[in-house]
């Protein structure tokens, strides 16, 4: 409860700040329209020449694209802006201020800053998903929608665990931005279903840089191609990933504060 109130305070201050630059705010939304529009155009061009890609039909691809932007939006709304600051803090020694607060440090570090305009990305992504659903034509039952929502949350948390792991490395290695840059480059791969890629890439996109599975799984779920067992397995994997990343974070903190073992 307290943590929710804290989060609301964080979001409210960031939002006020962004509203000071209203022009930029609206331009960002416009840019997102552009980006999503051209991505859809790309898919349309591809599907002029085929009806399926690895078993995915056009409406399903649109769905996938929507999920891709949903996941991006979710991660870029809270986690990316917060983690960006953390690396600076570690370098400048101002991480200490987080440590002085009577709040779980991992929570603070992960949610302190937001880019509220990315909520628009979430909305746009959802619109695309709905468009895709309409095209698919099937009825989406409550169970399917639930599976979708769950898979979506798991997907975002998978990406979160990777980001957390990368940021933790900055306790030991100073220039981690480079690694983060590689990560961002790889996230492009999420715009296509993960089974399109050769095996080694498929595996990497499901484990090391889990963007592949983070996007494909929810898309599968709402397309009716993933059942409870699949989502449960995904959930288990997510819990494991978040657990490992959090443990690594605690280890990093201990090293920062000079705790022995």
């Amino acid at each position, binding site marked *: 409860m307290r943590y929710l109130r*804290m989060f609301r*305070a964080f979001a409210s201050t960031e939002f006020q700040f962004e509203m000071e630059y209203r022009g930029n705010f609206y331009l960002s939304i416009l840019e997102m329209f552009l980006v999503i529009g051209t991505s859809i155009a790309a898919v349309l061009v591809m599907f002029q020449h085929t009806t399926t890609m690895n078993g995915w039909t056009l409406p399903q691809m649109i769905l996938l694209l929507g999920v891709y932007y949903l996941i991006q939006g979710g991660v870029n709304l809270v986690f990316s802006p917060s983690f960006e600051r953390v690396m600076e803090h570690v370098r400048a020694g101002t991480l*200490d201020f987080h440590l*002085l*607060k009577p709040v779980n440090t991992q929570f603070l570090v992960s949610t302190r800053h937001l880019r509220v305009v990315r909520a628009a990305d979430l909305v746009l992504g959802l619109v695309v998903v709905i468009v895709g659903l309409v095209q698919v034509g099937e009825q989406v039952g409550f169970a399917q929608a639930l599976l979708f929502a769950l898979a979506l949350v798991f997907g975002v948390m998978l990406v979160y665990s990777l980001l957390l792991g990368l940021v933790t490395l900055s306790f030991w290695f100073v220039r981690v931005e480079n690694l983060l840059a590689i990560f961002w480059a790889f996230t492009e791969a999420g715009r296509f279903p993960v089974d399109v890629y050769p095996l080694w890439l498929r595996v990497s996109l499901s484990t090391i840089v889990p963007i592949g599975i983070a996007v494909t799984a929810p898309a599968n779920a709402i397309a009716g191609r993933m059942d409870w067992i699949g989502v449960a397995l995904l959930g288990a994997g997510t819990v494991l990933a978040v657990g490992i990343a959090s443990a690594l974070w605690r280890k990093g903190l201990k090293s920062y504060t000079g705790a022995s073992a």
Partner: protein
Amino acid sequence: MDAPVVDVRALRKVYRVTERETGLAATLRSIVKRRYRDVLAVDGITFRIDPGEVVGFLGPNGAGKTTTLKMLSGLLYPTGGEATVLGHVPWRREGDFLRGMTLLMGNRSQLVWDIPAADSFLVLKEIYAVPTAQYKRTLDELTELLELQPLLHKPVRGLSLGERMKVEFAAGLLHSPGVAFLDEPTLGLDISMQGRIRRFVAEYNQRSGATILLTSHYMDDVVALCRRVIVIHRGVLLYDGGLADLAERMAPYKRITVTLRGDVGDLAAFGDVVSSTENTATLHVPRTQAGDRTARLVRELGDQLADISVEDPPIEEVIDKVFASERPLAEATA
């Protein structure tokens, strides 16, 4: 006798620093085997602070002051020894401990620069779970004491250094901590702002009864605020006691400065001549004989004497002597 607010026993901190020589061969070697050096930052210090005290922590750079503060605020794990603050072990970072204390660092800001201070305060209110009524009261009081009214609604980025420091102070005290650790709080501020901050700290201590431990480079901070000082050098506690006592013990002399109309002759008969120029001279005379010697100087120099001043030795001199001794001073006998 109340329980001490800060209780430190044989606290010790050793840093492990990797040593690397330059050159390709050394770099390659370091991949296989790393060489370490142990740096002793704090070497077994012991002291206690009672509720409501304002204690100054003195020491040259690298003496171990900041390291000690970091251990007492829970930011660092010690290598040895024990400490409790407000009855808690700091580095366990329990909620009640964190809510009861604050650490202010002079050269580092905890506020978000792009938003007005007032907004950061609201976030802090939630983080410390300060009830709204109490928050309003505390904020009003701090605003009054620090003259924050014009500063609260401007982005922190646009404030001058002094204004930022005031706002940082307020941010650190919003949750009414029982203990405040202040690390170089007046660093980089101009003289008038230093004075304002000092007055604020004294007033705050009076009004709230909060215990304050402060480190500073500026002797004036310590002289103005602290009746008790702890002197640290090379991680060793050299002195713990009253500032006035310290001066008397380390520098039992007074400083007489004379300005003459003609050339300065040989004044060795009046005292220790520590420096002289063409027309001026500075002498050290034993404290008890200061009055005597002054009178003699006036009498015997007569017309030649243009100006004379009698002062306590500057505190810096006193402290430097303590550092130079590098050995803990024995407890003063009454």
